[in-house]
């Protein structure tokens, strides 16, 4: 599989800590699931480390659906990373 970009969206305090609302990234090809993606993002700098350090708290959605750590990611996906929701 060739490396192709993934669209990342960040919300609420995840966005505040990373300092970006969205970005396009091309992770190494061995990054194939949500857990690996989060682990890789954490290596991208102290802001990412601060935002994602508690990866049991952070929630992930792939193409607007809640995802689990073991769920596969694919090039072209829209992947959102955010805190537990607090609407209603």
């Amino acid at each position, binding site marked *: 599989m060739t490396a192709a970009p993934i669209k990342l*969206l960040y*919300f*609420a*305090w995840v966005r*505040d800590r990373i300092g970006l609302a969205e970005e396009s990234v091309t992770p190494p090809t061995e990054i194939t699931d949500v857990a690996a993606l989060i682990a890789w993002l954490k290596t991208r700098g102290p802001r990412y480390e601060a935002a994602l350090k508690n990866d049991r708290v952070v929630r992930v*959605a792939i193409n*607007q*659906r*809640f995802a689990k750590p073991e769920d596969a990611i694919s090039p072209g996906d*829209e992947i*959102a990373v*955010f*805190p*537990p*929701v*607090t*609407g*209603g």
Partner: protein
Amino acid sequence: MAVRVQAEDFSIEAEIGALTRGRTTIGGVASFIGLVRDMAGGESIRSMTLEHYPAMADQMLAEIEAEAKQRWSLDASLIVHRYGRLKPGDRIVLVITASAHRGDAFEACQFLMDWLKTQAPFWKKEETSTATRWVEARASDDDAAERWLSEKTNE
């Protein structure tokens, strides 16, 4: 059956009127309105800003509503969720359920609120006189949503 995500306020009377007009199979309407409180953790709130993930919010609310329709006999339902900067006393969310009988309307209304609290991608940020902070998710909200899962399993 409808869901709306909007910045604007809503009129409860107008929404119930529009939902029930001409539908004479409806015998009962239940509604829930969530408001911005003026206090949190002993501190006075100046404003509350609701952020959301638009594409996912629309989809999750529609799914939650479809789930309610499957579980209960509903003639009509509506979810309206606001986003943006709100003041204490402002309306945040509206859920309306209409059914032939009150039991279905009451239960579906509570289910919709419990589920959207834990499933719909909205985040609240509170502004006090001294600080701005993101509201933390509450375990009691997860428990309230879980209850419906276990009830389903026990059926």
